[in-house]
């Protein structure tokens, strides 16, 4: 059995998970990363995507997160998500609404910087939709 560490997923509204896990896959802004026990301390922002958690006991769980950041220490990992939800409970209409909002924002951005940021966010959201909703 692999070594385990403490993983916590919190959104502003509540604490979603807090348990011993073997590994977690985090969608970092600079690429996905797999975190295991005794990871070097890293702080990273995350993009909208799927967090895959493999607890010590029980089956793998997947959560959709929309932005936030992760604080990784050798003894544990804390993921502060702006909003997070279990993949099974994800409402497709809600996701569609977020995509619409992002699209609206990208189209009405005032300056180039803002537009490129909004477009990036939109792209990340559509990618997330693609992975979650089987075509």
């Amino acid at each position, binding site marked *: 059995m692999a070594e385990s560490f403490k993983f916590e997923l919190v959104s*502003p*509204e509540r604490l979603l998970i807090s348990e011993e896990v073997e590994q977690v896959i985090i969608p970092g*802004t600079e690429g996905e990363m797999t975190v295991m026990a005794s990871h*070097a301390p*890293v*702080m990273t922002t995350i993009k909208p995507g799927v967090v895959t958690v493999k607890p010590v006991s029980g089956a793998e769980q997947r959560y959709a997160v929309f932005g936030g950041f992760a604080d990784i*220490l050798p003894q544990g990992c*804390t993921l502060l998500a702006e909003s997070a939800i279990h993949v099974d409970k994800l409402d497709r209409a809600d996701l569609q609404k977020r995509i619409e909002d992002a699209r609206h924002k990208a189209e009405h951005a005032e300056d180039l910087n803002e537009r490129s940021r909004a477009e990036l966010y939109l792209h990340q959201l559509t990618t997330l939709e693609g992975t979650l909703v089987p075509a």
Partner: protein
Amino acid sequence: MASLKDLRNRIASVKATQKITKAMQMVAAAKLRRAQEAAEAARPYSERMDAVLANIAQAVAGGGEAPALMTGTGKDDVHLLVVATADRGLCGGFNSQIVRLAREHIRKLLAEGKTVKILTVGRKGYDMLRRDYARLIVDRVELKEIKQIGFANADEIAKKVIALFEDGQFDVCTLFYSRFKSVISQVPTAQPLIPVATGEVEEGSNSVYEYEPSAGDILGDLVPRNIAVQIFKALLENVAGEMGAKMTAMDNATRNAGEMIDKLTITYNRQRQAQITKELIEIISGAEAL
């Protein structure tokens, strides 16, 4: 002297009021439980946020990378006060306590010759502050339509504050709300939002972090979010406090109504008895006269 009929009406109306206050108390109790749960559920996030922020602030300290939102503008000429109150009354001194604290602050700042701007959250605070400081209120937010306060509501307020700051409208921002100590005790609190007051760094956690992207970038993302989180926390505590205060106030009202009914009933009975006695005397003396 009120007639018997008047007394009867009076008792009926106090009874009706008592029923209403009783119902309000029970509704407040149910809402309080939910609000308390929400406030507790939100606590881990803000705690972690504080820890992370303290860590990262230490990492960039002195590097000149810290965003202005965190360090402030370096001046303190213009103050923005965010006053968060409830949207409804009938909750004891809850709203006026917050407003009183804010007023004291405003007076002090004005006496020092600073410029004060006010952003009110919730209808009651706006109503009360409008009387004295209508010119100072720059914006207001009402949450009346919202049943359960979500993070998105807090985020909206935070965005307003940040937009004002980036526009150079103020230098220092303070948030007024009521800290939920217990059901019967709420403490009005003033909390600095900008510049950020960072907590103590945990012992042993100051290991060398790697930042992805750079520490400055993360901080730029994190500080605005922290403001939203602080506001969110304040709003949740406010709701819990409001419900607690309302429960206590309505409990008192129900008890007072009960006492009033008792007193009125005694007066009513006494008067009825007096009238019966009077009628009896009239009949008896009438019979004797024959």
